[in-house]
């Protein structure tokens, strides 16, 4: 868990704060986004398992992290925050420049959060046949991601961009969940493109120098979550499949 103080030189950088949770993949997107833009920010840690009144003050509708606070105004929802950052500080663009590729980037970002993350979360928190079934769903959706990265260094092309940041969880969170749940989701032999991109992404000079959740703590955290959630999700029975949708 880190806090860095803001030492802004330009007036437009005044009062940039990120309210996040140390291991949250959503908070991490915003931290990388600001880093890629060279924007210094103050980080405020929020324990999402023990939410403070501040969180609901800044995000009354959802009470979730991350929240970007800029010049006193708060913005929730990581994908919306990234587009805000990109528009307000237009240098080093995160989004593609033409409308069609922008639409594609937004589409796949939404897809990742809605279709990939949910079943992957269930892979972490289920066991046996249910877990395998969730893993199969993840695999089917990953095929589409694999198709997209073919022939490209990053999802953004030659430079890292919005979609790389949104999909970053594939590079470091899914492997952590795989280890905790003892099941493979992103098999490098099945997804060589994603494997190469993972290396490129994690070794990117800017990505590497920003805060990154410590591996051991990450594994311990998700071990605890699995321990808590296994019995609960088991009790949901078939409702889970209605929620995720079928393959």
């Amino acid at each position, binding site marked *: 868990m880190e806090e860095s103080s803001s030492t802004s030189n330009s007036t437009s950088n005044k009062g940039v704060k990120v309210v996040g949770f140390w291991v949250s993949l959503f908070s991490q997107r915003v931290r990388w986004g600001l880093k890629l833009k060279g924007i210094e920010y103050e980080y405020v840690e929020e324990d999402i398992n023990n939410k403070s009144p501040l969180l609901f003050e800044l995000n009354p*509708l959802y009470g979730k992290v991350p929240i970007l606070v800029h010049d006193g*105004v708060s*913005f*929730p*929802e990581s994908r*919306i*925050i990234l*587009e*805000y950052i990109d*528009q*307000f500080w237009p240098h080093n663009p995160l989004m593609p420049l033409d*409308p*069609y590729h*922008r*639409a594609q980037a*937004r*589409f796949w970002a*939404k*897809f990742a959060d809605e*279709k990939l993350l949910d079943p992957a979360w269930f892979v972490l928190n289920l066991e046996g046949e249910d877990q395998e079934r969730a893993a199969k769903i993840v695999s089917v959706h990953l095929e*589409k991601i694999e198709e997209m990265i073919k022939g490209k260094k990053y999802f953004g092309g030659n430079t890292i961009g919005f979609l790389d940041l949104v999909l970053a969880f594939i590079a470091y969170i899914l492997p952590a969940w795989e280890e905790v749940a003892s099941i493979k989701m992103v098999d490098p032999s099945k997804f060589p493109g994603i494997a190469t991109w993972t290396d490129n992404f994690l070794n990117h000079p800017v990505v590497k120098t920003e805060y990154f959740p410590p591996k051991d703590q990450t594994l311990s955290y998700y071990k605890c979550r699995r321990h808590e959630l296994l019995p609960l999700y088991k009790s949901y029975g078939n409702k889970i499949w209605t929620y995720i949708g079928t393959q």
Partner: protein
Amino acid sequence: MSDEVILLDVYASMFGMRVRIALAEKGVEYEYREEDLGNKSPFLLQMNPVYKKIPVLIHNGNPICESLLILEYIDEVWKDNKSPPLLPSDAYHRATARFWADFVDKKVFDLGRRLWTRKGEEQEAAKKEFIDALKLLEGELGNKPYLGGDKFGYLDVALVAYYSWFYAYEKCGNFSIEEHCPKLVAWAKRCMKKESVAKSLADPIKVYEFTLMLKKKYGLE
């Protein structure tokens, strides 16, 4: 070379209506193709292989899916047309508009659907949450003529399509939306004065009949 624009859609779909309004606002000529969701065309499955849903906008052979993303695309491509931009120009208002449009999709759609498909306690609970959600949007509207401010915009387009479904919700839920959210209904009627909205929204009676047909089909009566 002129643009080729095709819209794959379903008459009663509020998501489709959003796109129709935006295209009308921009004065874009397009070919409308009605899909039968019980028998989806191979073309739809080819253009939206991931979700297999409408609406899909196909512009010079390139498909764009997801209604809110289509709105942004339309706004970015046809930006020199006769009408002002749909999305606010500054980053703050743009983020706010996107946030509320996302809220509409997350909450209003699901709650509305539960309202007309469920019965008894479940329906009552959905009704209450639905009204609460609309009240939040009413709060966002405040005293402005439109959700976009002085001008009709992206967030207005995102929400006003639901107005064609209000009659169906009210009949199924046995309540009056206007009684709980008079400002919002007044806003919707104001939007309906615009030609782009009036000609794009489905007839509420036809929407209600559509829900009755679906209820019968899926045994939800």
